[in-house]
């Protein structure tokens, strides 16, 4: 079988070359410590007395994670290989380079590898006298039943959850509060996605899984992990309905409640299709009596070159709305 079509040089060098390109493109927003090439730090944002928000995970989800490093959002990101949690060292480097002295919050998606590596990083930081806490994002409602929320994966909802925690930290709230708000944001954020094609890793350039034309994978993870089931490819409205049915049932928001919406591309799906999905999402939310406070549409949390999309709904309250509205200035996400 022929290799998948990619603009890369050496698959093993892809992450480091990407980071070089990111730093070259965004010198006003991002920098890297000399001896920590996999720690990306915000130029503005970190400051004395501020809780240090460190996000991170495997590469291949750009603009997640490094695109959300900046004033008002994350202070730093630890960058792993493609679809692989970073080892502890970059997480430690990131936390120390951005350390404001008010404690560190590690905020990242719930995956076995990430948990083990960030836990080791937290241990190393504690050894250096830096308080480190962890909040795991678990917004992928397709990845475990409702009563096992703690087992779920973190996917595109990261964007809203990071945003809320980043705003809390930027408001100089103490570590307890930033942690509480991160957990609160996670508890009210719900995502589900579908894949229309496989992604392929730059190192192998083979499809990660087989997905025949005419089929889709429902409940797809953001690493090409299989979802809940295969089914025939449906229309945008049918897909939006299936996802919205599941999210609305779980979210159980009263009429009149406000929400934030993210219609996300998994990589290869263009804006036209996302906005077609959003037209239906907006209809469904209106029918449920919910008010859309904010909508993001685009490639916010991707899976390399996978075709497909996810829908995230965050159930706002006054506090979360304030956090979501708070300004931020990142290389790949600006607001306010």
């Amino acid at each position, binding site marked *: 079988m022929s290799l998948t079509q990619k603009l890369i040089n050496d698959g093993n060098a892809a992450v480091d070359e990407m980071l070089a390109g990111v730093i070259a493109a965004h010198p006003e927003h991002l920098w890297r410590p000399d001896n920590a090439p996999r720690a990306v730090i915000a130029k503005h944002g970190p400051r004395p007395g501020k809780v240090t928000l460190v996000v991170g995970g495997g590469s291949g989800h750009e603009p997640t994670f490094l695109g959300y490093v900046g004033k008002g959002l994350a202070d730093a990101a630890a960058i*792993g290989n493609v679809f692989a949690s970073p080892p*502890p060292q970059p997480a430690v480097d990131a936390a120390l380079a951005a350390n404001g002295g008010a404690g560190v919050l590690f905020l990242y998606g719930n*995956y076995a590898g990430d948990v083990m590596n960030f836990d080791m990083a937290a241990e190393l930081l504690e050894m250096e006298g830096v308080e480190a806490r962890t909040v795991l994002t678990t917004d992928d409602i397709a990845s475990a039943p409702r009563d096992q929320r703690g087992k779920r994966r973190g996917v595109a909802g990261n964007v809203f959850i990071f945003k809320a925690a980043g705003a809390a930290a930027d408001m100089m709230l103490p570590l307890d509060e930033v942690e509480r708000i991160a957990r609160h944001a996670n508890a009210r954020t719900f995502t589900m996605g579908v894949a229309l094609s496989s992604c392929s890793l730059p190192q192998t350039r083979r499809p990660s*899984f087989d997905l025949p034309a005419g089929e889709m994978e429902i409940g797809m993870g953001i*690493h090409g992990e299989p979802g809940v089931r295969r089914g025939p490819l449906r229309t945008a409205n049918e897909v939006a309905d299936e996802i919205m049915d599941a999210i609305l049932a779980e979210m159980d928001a009263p009429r009149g409640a406000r929400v934030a919406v993210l219609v996300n591309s998994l990589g290869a799906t263009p804006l036209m299709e996302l906005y077609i999905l959003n037209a239906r999402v907006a209809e469904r939310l209106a029918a449920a009596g919910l008010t859309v406070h904010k909508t993001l549409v685009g490639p916010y949390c991707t899976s390399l070159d996978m075709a497909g999309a996810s829908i995230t709904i965050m159930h706002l309250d006054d506090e979360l709305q304030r956090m979501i509205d708070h300004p931020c200035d990142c290389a790949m996400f600006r607001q306010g």
Partner: protein
Amino acid sequence: MEFTAEDAKGLFAAFAARMQAERDALCALDGVIGDADHGIAMEQGMNAAAEAAKTVEAGTLQDVFNAAAKAFLNAVGASSGPLYATAFLRAGKAAGARPSMTAGELRTVIVAMRDGIVQRGKAEPGQKTMLDAWAPAAQAAEAGADAEAIAAAARDGAEATRQMVATLGRAARLGDRSLGHPDPGAVSASMLVEEICRAMRG
């Protein structure tokens, strides 16, 4: 027969060569129930481990294992990184701060690796992870089985993961859909056990 620090470096070179050869096959296995990168993680990790081991000068067995552990972890991250880094650290402790041991003592290395994986990953047998290859291998080693039998125990353990429903790691969200497919981490584990057993036989 002696197993020296130089032999330990050779063992890591053998791990690296084996993972290089099996990379794409392991990725394909991981693609079915995970994220298709297990072969890459193992290849990169073992390459880094072998490189680091090679540069240990006049060191003890433990020095070689420790260097390999650190290099593996930093090259890989992922699930495999902390699991094998911890396994190698425990293995180094078992092998000891000495220039060599008998090849038969590689059995304690296998047992220590299993212990390290359990310590780090908190898995139990039957959850469809690499432990399902390491645990039977370690049991056989503890019982004093010969190299052939230990390797067979690991292979059988890996094969048996086909019939398991994953409850840990990436595949745990698949439910019954993980049935019928072997766990990639268990398959690579059985290959590593084979390489250790080859070293045991000399």
